[in-house]
């Protein structure tokens, strides 16, 4: 066959979120591809700048449907740093428990999606059923399955009663058993090995060069985990290790994620068993002093960064969110070239993309039906013009 252009997305069965690839393929082999991620600009950063620190937390919880806890934790952590608050240890532990449960449900979800991308629907159904256990635990502990609403500036909003702690601890053994089964499957199941090994290869040098983060980077042998390298919450108190792998392919990323599932189970168990006594929140001041904070957090998909500029008010003057998916995108474009057409879904899924959190802005001309992006200078000029017109200068 001659070279053909295959449009994948923004609407496609393999994609749960809008993204567009223009894949140029020679028969079944990918020659090159173009990526377009901006289909769903939601203006959250701007909206966050309009709300005070109490009302902004529920908004940020809705940046992502899976790492909802990540976005609020990284934000309140940054604000607490700006306010120079020391929050109670019990609150830190509760945040850690929810964070690790979130990582577990995210990785179980990912395992199912990866299996679905290679047509292995049985594993997909199994992991999603077991993910329900984690969701049930989250519901018991926080009151919600998705947007937990546990964080606020100064601590957490719900305490864990001894009965809740016991109920959660009782659920862990079965979960650990299922995770052990998936770990065995990930390294033994025949078709998974066939479809994962050697696919979407990313060397350590490439991972560093293209700025990959999270399990994608760790699967290429980059020992980088914010929880270890820039410790926060109660991670320094808990015995755990960073899971790395040097396969560098989808197989490696699977091994890293199932390894992290095991680690997360242990962290949750440790935190539940050693939950310190004391208050769960302190009263924060209303306003944060002038300053700039770069808050980092290891979300399930990798390093999540919130840049916050405060201005002696009760609102953030500027909030910039860098999601892990944005950091990992370039590595996908690189590792797909020369691969099979059939490998696109699984290589894309291997970074666990979360596109709606990543989408920024695209310029659409409705008349000419053309889309494009702005250069930095154009964007700056547009911003200055916009504020001049609004302020009437």
């Amino acid at each position, binding site marked *: 066959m001659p070279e053909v252009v295959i449009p994948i997305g923004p609407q496609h069965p393999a994609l749960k979120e809008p993204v567009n690839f223009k894949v140029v393929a020679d028969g079944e082999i990918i020659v090159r591809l173009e990526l377009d991620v901006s289909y769903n600009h939601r203006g959250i950063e701007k909206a966050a700048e309009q709300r005070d620190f109490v009302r902004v937390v529920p908004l940020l919880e809705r940046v992502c449907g899976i790492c909802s806890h990540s976005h609020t934790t990284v934000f309140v952590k940054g604000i607490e740093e700006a306010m120079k608050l020391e929050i109670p240890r019990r609150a830190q532990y509760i945040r850690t428990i929810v964070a690790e449960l979130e990582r577990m449900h995210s990785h179980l979800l990912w395992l199912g999606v990866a299996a679905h991308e290679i047509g292995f629907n049985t*594993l997909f159904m199994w992991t999603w059923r077991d993910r329900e256990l984690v969701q049930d635990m989250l519901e018991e502990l926080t009151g919600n399955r998705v947007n937990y609403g546990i964080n606020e500036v100064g601590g957490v909003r719900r305490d864990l009663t001894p009965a809740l702690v016991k109920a959660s601890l009782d659920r862990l053994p079965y979960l650990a058993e299922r995770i052990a089964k998936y770990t065995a499957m990930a390294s033994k199941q025949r078709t998974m090995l066939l479809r994962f090994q050697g696919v979407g290869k990313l060397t350590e040098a490439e991972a560093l060069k293209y700025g990959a983060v999270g399990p994608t980077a760790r699967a290429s042998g980059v020992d980088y985990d914010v929880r270890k390298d820039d410790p926060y919450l109660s991670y320094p108190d808990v015995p755990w290790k960073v899971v790395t792998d040097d396969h560098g392919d989808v197989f490696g990323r699977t091994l890293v994620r199932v390894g992290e599932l095991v680690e997360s189970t242990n962290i949750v168990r440790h935190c539940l068993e050693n939950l310190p006594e004391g208050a769960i929140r302190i009263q924060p001041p209303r306003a944060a002093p002038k300053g700039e904070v770069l808050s980092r957090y290891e979300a399930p998909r990798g390093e999540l960064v919130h840049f916050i500029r405060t201005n002696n008010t009760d609102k953030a003057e500027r909030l910039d969110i860098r999601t892990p998916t944005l950091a990992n995108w370039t590595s996908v474009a690189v590792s797909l070239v020369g691969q099979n057409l059939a490998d696109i879904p699984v290589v894309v899924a291997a970074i666990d993309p979360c596109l709606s959190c990543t989408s920024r802005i695209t310029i659409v001309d409705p008349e000419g039906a053309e889309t494009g992006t702005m250069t930095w200078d154009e964007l700056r000029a547009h911003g200055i013009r916009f504020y001049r017109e609004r302020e009437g200068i």
Partner: protein
Amino acid sequence: MEPWLLLLYLLVFPGFLFLLTYALFLQYADRKMSARMQARVGPPLLQPFADLVKLLGKEVITPKDVDAKAFGAAPLLAFAAVMTAFLYVPVVGLSPFAFQGDLVLVLYLLTLPTIVLFVVGWLSRNIFATLGGVRAVTQMFIYEVPFFLVLLGPALAAGTWSISEIVAWQADHVWFAVLQPLGLVIALIGLQAKLERTPFDIPEAETEIVAGPWTELTGRRLALMHLTMDVSLVVGSALVAALFLGGPLTPWAIEPAWLSVLVGFGLFLAKTFAVLLVLTTIKMAMGRIRIDQLNDWGWKYLASLAMLQVLAVLLLKGWSLV
């Protein structure tokens, strides 16, 4: 057989009416077993029938610049082919339409749906459908040779080209599953590939090329194509049951005749169901492999083993051991 009896055989039992009912039932059994293996509930008994009726009532959309006549005729052709193929497979006793060479006819009629899928894919003028169609024929060239070879094994051993006579031969001797176990395994793998079920659902890989050749099929065309695949499943499993598992005949005579027919029918149901159970388990226990991996594996191992099996049959036959 009387002409009116033949017509009854053709249209009602075990012909078209029974075939359609059984095809929908096997689809139900397949879906229900899959669901239970995946820890789901699965559909109710009449769901396949409801799906069929619903699809038949849906709007038929012909994509722009597509030859509507050819596009509409293609699913009919595939459907007619597999329905015809069923007439030569023994269901209760031996087929009244049997003739020397009906095995070859059935094999070619069973190949038609794949060719039709390629044609549909090509006619659709849709990049996903075209890719899927190309994948469908590529895959066909890989599994078809070993599949045909091992199905000819029983014919060679029994010295006849008629499915019914092969069944009769097994009633006198022993099942070919015992004599040619390798052939049975390869036949099951080939059947799985022919029906485009996981791990061979490469042509319609949902996450890669949407629905492959099926992408632009709508309404009754889609319904017919789905029904074709269901009927293929019945014909394919009945063929494997007839060639390797002794078909509906018992080694000893059963009196009276009506009981013999009943037992034969029961055997047919049990054996086709057993084949389906194996196919469903394979489908549920694996992911999809890539077309290049299938190519390597199919030609290196499947084809070589099939040739070995045929060679073994020919040698044993030459030394008059079987």
